[in-house]
C-alpha cells in the first residue's frame, strides 16, 4: 500500500496546490490543480481518486500554414514568448494572489522536441528559484496516463496512448507502466499529420481533426480503398501505409489516369475522392490499433481500455474501441475530451503532484535536464501499489 500524505501541504493547509508546465511539442500548456488531503490516501492504492479540482487549464497551440509541419526553432520561440503571459493568465484564473503558496512546480522532462522542452524547463527553474518551490520533472506519457485515470476513474485499464509522437499500448505492472505494443516506425498522429500536409488541409485546430471531418463526409463507405494492413504481433508499422496513401493522393491531384484504383480505365472517371482516402486511412489505421489493444487485453486478462493522447479525441477511434470492448465480455472504453486528450499542463501537474506526494522531488537543479527520448517504462511509479 502507498502513502500519498507523506509530505504535508505548505502552510498547514488541508489541500495541495500544483502548477504544471507542458511544451514538448507545439502545444504550450499551463495547468493549476488542487488535491484535498484525504485520509483514505494514507495507506491505499487510490491514486486515481484524488478528487482533483482543476483551477486553471490554459493552452496555446503553435499552428503553421497548411502543408507545413512545425519546426523546433519556431516552436521554441512560440513557447518562449508566450510562457510568462500564459502562466500569469493561469494564476489569475486560479485566483492565486500569492504564488509562493504553491506546493510544487511540475514540468515536462521529456520525451519531446529539444528546443521547446528546454524553453519550458527554463521557465520552471526560474519560478522555482524565484518563489522557492520544489520542482518535479514529469514524463509526458505518464502525464497523459495519470490524467486519464483521474478523469475517468478507470482503475487498471490497458492504456492506448496515441498522439503525434507516440503510439503505445501500455499496462501497469509492478511499479512501472510497461509497454506491450508500439509502433515500429512512426506514430499514428504523425502519419495522419503528414497525410494532412500532402492534402494541404489547414492545420487549425489540428490536422488530425480535419482528417476526421473529411472522413465523416465520405459518401462511399461500402467501397473501402484497400491499404496495407501491417500489424506485427503486438506491434504495428505505419510508414508503408503512409507512403502508399501519399502516392495515391498525389496521383489523384496530378490526375494520373493510369492509376486504375483512382480512375476508371475506360472512361477516366474519378472513382475515389479525398474524403474516401481519409475514411479508408482511418478505418485501416484504427483497426490495427484496436487489434493490438485487444491482444494486450487478452494477455493481461483485462476488459477495460483507456485512450489518451491527441488522437484519442477521434470519435471514430473511440467508437471502434468501444465495439471491441463490448465484444470482450462487456468491457468498457474510457476516454477524455479534448481538454485533456490534447497535450496540456494539468496532466503534468497531476502526475507531478502524485510523485511529489510520495516524497520525490528534485534535490539539485542538475536533475532537471530535459531529454528528447524518455521511455514510459523508465519511470518508477511510486504512487501505485
Amino acid at each position, binding site marked *: 500500500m502507498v502513502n500519498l500524505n507523506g509530505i504535508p501541504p505548505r502552510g498547514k493547509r488541508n489541500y495541495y496546490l500544483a502548477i504544471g508546465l507542458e511544451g514538448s511539442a507545439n502545444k504550450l500548456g499551463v495547468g493549476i490543480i488542487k488535491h484535498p488531503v484525504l485520509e483514505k490516501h494514507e495507506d491505499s492504492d487510490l491514486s486515481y481518486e484524488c478528487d482533483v479540482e482543476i483551477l486553471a487549464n490554459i493552452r496555446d497551440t503553435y499552428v503553421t500554414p497548411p502543408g507545413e509541419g512545425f519546426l523546433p526553432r519556431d516552436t521554441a520561440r512560440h513557447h518562449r514568448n508566450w510562457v510568462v503571459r500564459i502562466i500569469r493568465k493561469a494564476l489569475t484564473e486560479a485566483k492565486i494572489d500569492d504564488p509562493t503558496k504553491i506546493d510544487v512546480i511540475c514540468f515536462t522532462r521529456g520525451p519531446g522536441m529539444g528546443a521547446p522542452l528546454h524553453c519550458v524547463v527554463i521557465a520552471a527553474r526560474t519560478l522555482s528559484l524565484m518563489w522557492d518551490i520544489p520542482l518535479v520533472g514529469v514524463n509526458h506519457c505518464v502525464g497523459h496516463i495519470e490524467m486519464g485515470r483521474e478523469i475517468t476513474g478507470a482503475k487498471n485499464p490497458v492504456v492506448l496512448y496515441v498522439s503525434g509522437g507516440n503510439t503505445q499500448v501500455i499496462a501497469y505492472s509492478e511499479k512501472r507502466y510497461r509497454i506491450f505494443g508500439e509502433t515500429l516506425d512512426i506514430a499514428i498522429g504523425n502519419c495522419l499529420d503528414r497525410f494532412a500536409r500532402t492534402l494541404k488541409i489547414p492545420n487549425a485546430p489540428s490536422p488530425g481533426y480535419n482528417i476526421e471531418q473529411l472522413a465523416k463526409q465520405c459518401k462511399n463507405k461500402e467501397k473501402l480503398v484497400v491499404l496495407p494492413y501491417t500489424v506485427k504481433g503486438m506491434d504495428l508499422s505505419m510508414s508503408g501505409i503512409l507512403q502508399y496513401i501519399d502516392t495515391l493522393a498525389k496521383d489523384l491531384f496530378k490526375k494520373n489516369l493510369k492509376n486504375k484504383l483512382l480512375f476508371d480505365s475506360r472512361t477516366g472517371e474519378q472513382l475515389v475522392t479525398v474524403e474516401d482516402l481519409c475514411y479508408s486511412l482511418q478505418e485501416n489505421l484504427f483497426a490495427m490499433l484496436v487489434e493490438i489493444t485487444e491482444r494486450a487485453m487478452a494477455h493481461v486478462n483485462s476488459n477495460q481500455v483507456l485512450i489518451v493522447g491527441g488522437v484519442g479525441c477521434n470519435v471514430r477511434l473511440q467508437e471502434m474501441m468501444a465495439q471491441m470492448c463490448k465484444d470482450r465480455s*462487456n468491457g468498457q472504453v474510457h476516454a477524455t475530451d479534448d481538454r485533456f486528450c490534447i497535450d496540456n499542463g494539468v496532466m503534468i501537474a497531476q502526475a507531478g503532484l502524485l510523485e511529489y506526494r510520495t516524497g520525490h522531488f528534485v534535490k539539485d537543479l542538475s536533475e532537471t535536464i530535459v531529454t528528447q527520448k524518455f521511455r514510459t517504462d523508465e519511470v518508477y511509479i511510486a504512487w501505485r501499489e
Partner: protein
Amino acid sequence: MSAEIIASIADVLTDNIPLTPISQGAEAVVFTSPVHPYLPKNRTDGDDKLYILKYRPEKKYRHPVIDKTLTKHRTLGESRLLAKLRLIDGLNVPKLIGCDPYHGCIWLEFLGEDLPNGHGFSNLKNFLWMNASDPYSDLVRDTMINVGKQIGLMHWNDYCHGDLTTSNIVLVRAGEDWQPYLIDFGLGSISTLVEDKGVDLYVLERAIISTHSSFANRYNLWVLEGFKSVFESHGKAGLGKYKDLIRRFEEVRLRGRKRSMIG
C-alpha cells in the same frame, strides 16, 4: 467471454457437432468437441479424445472489407504453416485436422491440460504464475530451456511465429517434464530475415518482462540458452547464424529505446 460471439459459431458450423467454449483470445474463440469434424465414428470411438476448433469470428469494429480479407488471410496462412511445421523433426506444433478459411475455422488436435489448484490452462504464462513461489526451480529452468529449443528449431528452419507471447506456448506433460508446443501462427510467416527472427525474440522477451517482471531476467537467459543450443548443434555455420541473429535482436531492442518520441 462474450456470449454473442460464442453463439455466432452456429452460423458457420452444423449443429451436429457439440461444442464447448474454453477461451476467447484476442483474435479467436477456442472450442473443444468430442466429435471429429469428418472422420466416421468407428474411426474415433473409444479414443476418448477431444478436438479443438479455433474460430475467428467477425470483428464488428472493423470495416467488413478489412474483416473478411484478414480472416481468410490469417486462417489460410495459419493452416499452411501448421501443416509445414508439423513435418519438422523435433518441432512441437498442434496437428492440423481441417480448415474452412472463408468462415475462419481451423480444426486441431487437443493439447495441454488444466493446471492444479485452479491455475488455469497449461500455457507458459499460467505455468510461470503457478511457479511464482519457487521461480528458479529445476523444473522451471528446464521448461524455459525447452521453450528456447523449440523457438531455435523453428527459426533454424526459417519460420517466424509473429506473436510469440507466453500465452501462445502450451505445455504438454511428458512424464515428469513439460514439453512446450508453439501455437497460434495467425501472424506467422516463412522468413530468412534476421529482422523477423529478432523481432520474434524481442516480442517474447517483452512479454515475459511485462507479465513476469520480477524473474524476467533469468527466464529470458534460459530461453536464449535453449535457443543457442539448437544453432550450436549445427557446428560453425550454426554458430555464425546465431551470432548474426543475436546482433539483430539487440538492435531491435535498442530501437525500442531509441525511438524518437515527440508530442
